[in-house]
């Protein structure tokens, strides 16, 4: 079943009078339960694609559907709800709040979703257990190692049981060994049926995914050859 459908999606920025295209008529289907890697060098438009997939930014034209729901809406609060309920973010630099404990960080999406305190704590604790950090629940990010921090942010991504996880260079700030552990955690989640979209520039990392697509100069390719994907 197709979960995400991008149709002729374009994005361009205005720089003075000039219109600079970043994404050019991109079309992409992602199946439910798929583990997809999007690869591309810097400047290829992969960050912009990820922002649009994450509903952090809006496309200039084209369609974006998630389970047949139209995701292109101008309302800020609606987008906030979509991000909160449907998407789990994992960032390269973790993006944890340093003054909150691991548990509190994981609780954040539930707070914005209006959960009651007790259930919130239980749910967040379950997510931490899932990434094997229940014994670090009361630690603050600066007291955790890089791998542990990334696992906290994965716990935060899955705590609201999102439709898919959007991971932006999840191993970029980690050493190879720790990166491996994070990737195997993703594979575990994938085996449980979670849809994952991972953005990376590292071939070794991308290989862990079911499918790799390449992005270059704002266009998608099935492989490194010049054939356009769509």
């Amino acid at each position, binding site marked *: 079943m197709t979960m995400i459908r991008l149709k002729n999606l374009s994005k361009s920025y205005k720089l003075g009078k000039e219109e600079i295209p970043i994404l050019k008529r991109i079309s992409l289907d992602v199946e439910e339960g798929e583990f997809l890697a999007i690869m591309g060098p810097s400047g290829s438009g992969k960050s912009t694609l990820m*922002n649009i997939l*994450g509903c*952090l*930014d809006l496309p200039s034209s084209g369609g974006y559907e998630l389970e047949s729901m139209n995701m292109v809406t101008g309302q*800020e*609060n609606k987008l*906030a*709800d979509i*991000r*909160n*309920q449907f998407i789990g*973010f994992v*960032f390269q630099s973790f*993006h*944890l*709040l340093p*003054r909150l404990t691991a548990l509190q960080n994981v609780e*954040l*999406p539930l*707070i*914005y*979703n209006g959960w009651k305190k007790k259930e919130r704590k239980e749910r967040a604790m379950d997510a931490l257990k899932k990434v094997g950090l229940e014994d670090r629940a009361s630690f603050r990010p600066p007291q955790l190692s890089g791998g542990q921090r990334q696992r906290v942010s994965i716990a*935060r991504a899955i705590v609201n049981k999102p439709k898919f996880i959007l991971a932006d260079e999840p191993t970029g700030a980690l050493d190879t060994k720790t990166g491996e552990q994070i990737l195997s955690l993703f594979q575990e989640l994938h085996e449980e049926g979670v849809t994952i979209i991972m953005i990376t520039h590292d071939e070794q990392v991308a290989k862990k995914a079911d499918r790799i697509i390449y992005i270059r100069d704002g266009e998608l390719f099935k492989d490194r050859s010049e054939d356009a994907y769509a």
Partner: protein
Amino acid sequence: MLENIRISFQSIWGHKLRSSLTMLGVIIGIAAVIAIFAIIQGRSEELKSNLIGMGNNTVNVVFEEADMYEEEGMWGGEVTNRSAPPIKQEAIEEILTYPNVNGMSIYYEGWQEAYHLINVTHPKLLGIDERYLDLFPATMVEGREFTELDFDSYSQVALINDVAMSELFPEGDALHQTIDISGMPFKIVGIFSDAEVDSDWYYPEPTIYLPATTWPLLNGFDAPMQVAVQASSSETIQEVGTMTADRLNMDLPPYETALYQVADFERMMEEISQFDQAFAFILGGIASISLLVGGIGVMNIMLVSVTERTREIGIKKALGAKRHVILAQFLTESVVLTSIGGVIGILTGLGIAKAISVFANMPFYVSVPAISGSFIFSMLIGIVFGLLPSIKASKLQPVEALRYE
């Protein structure tokens, strides 16, 4: 909400120096208001209670030309030199039966030298009737008060206070001695000290009491009298005074142009409160300037704080925080900051006022409306000056905020 307040405290505590410097403006402004208010209020409360009712709900009914209080305001007016016709005993008895009248006294008052051997004093001399000490109690140190017999038989006896005693009898032992007033001998039958006429305004002065019936011996039969009535409470002073004056006026001969009158306390009150208002106005001006400066400081720091926390805002927005959540967070922080400043300012202000009242021997009055008003105002500053930075924070775009390093 509670969570927001807790987070605000954490964040303020996390930047102790910066937060306290920011609060300083608010603290100084509020402290100044509270301190000056406490002192001025204290003064004016005391002024009121002394002016009106001499501290014990007593008021003088004065025999004066009819238009005294009408034309000249509070203190002006011609005081007549003529004395009032004698007051009938039945009028006094009638007034004493009026509601809310606690007591009444008719007495004479003047300043006359008194001698004992080579010692002299210049006391306040009072010719008192048998009810005077009920209204203005004195504590007897030695001897006795006047008896009915003293009044009825025109006894030349005197009560002197401890100040007069120390001036006339430096060696002590004044009881049963004779003093000389205008060439007349008076025997001291009692020594008193002024009862707690509870104020710093009364400087202890030598005072000598004589029976009112002996007053004509010294000053003739037409010496002007004083009439004092005591009301049961401060609220009824005006009413009691007016009723007394009206009753006494009934007995005046028709050709009399002077009347018994009482001061218009409501008008006096009004003038005092106008004075207070003028002060409050100046004060308000000074305070608003310092609070404005304080508020701008708060706004400045909040703007810095928003910039510093751009990434935090981005993360929260990415995770689904809506605009109002971010707005509430920063607004709460700003209000908590200025409220803490307000509380510290109130405590500091009260401390300063207390210190001034102790060192300068001034009354001190804790005004609850001033305190609660200041607190609410400090919160208001937080809202007003926190609004712009909070709106700025809430409007940040998540993409740009996340990219911010």
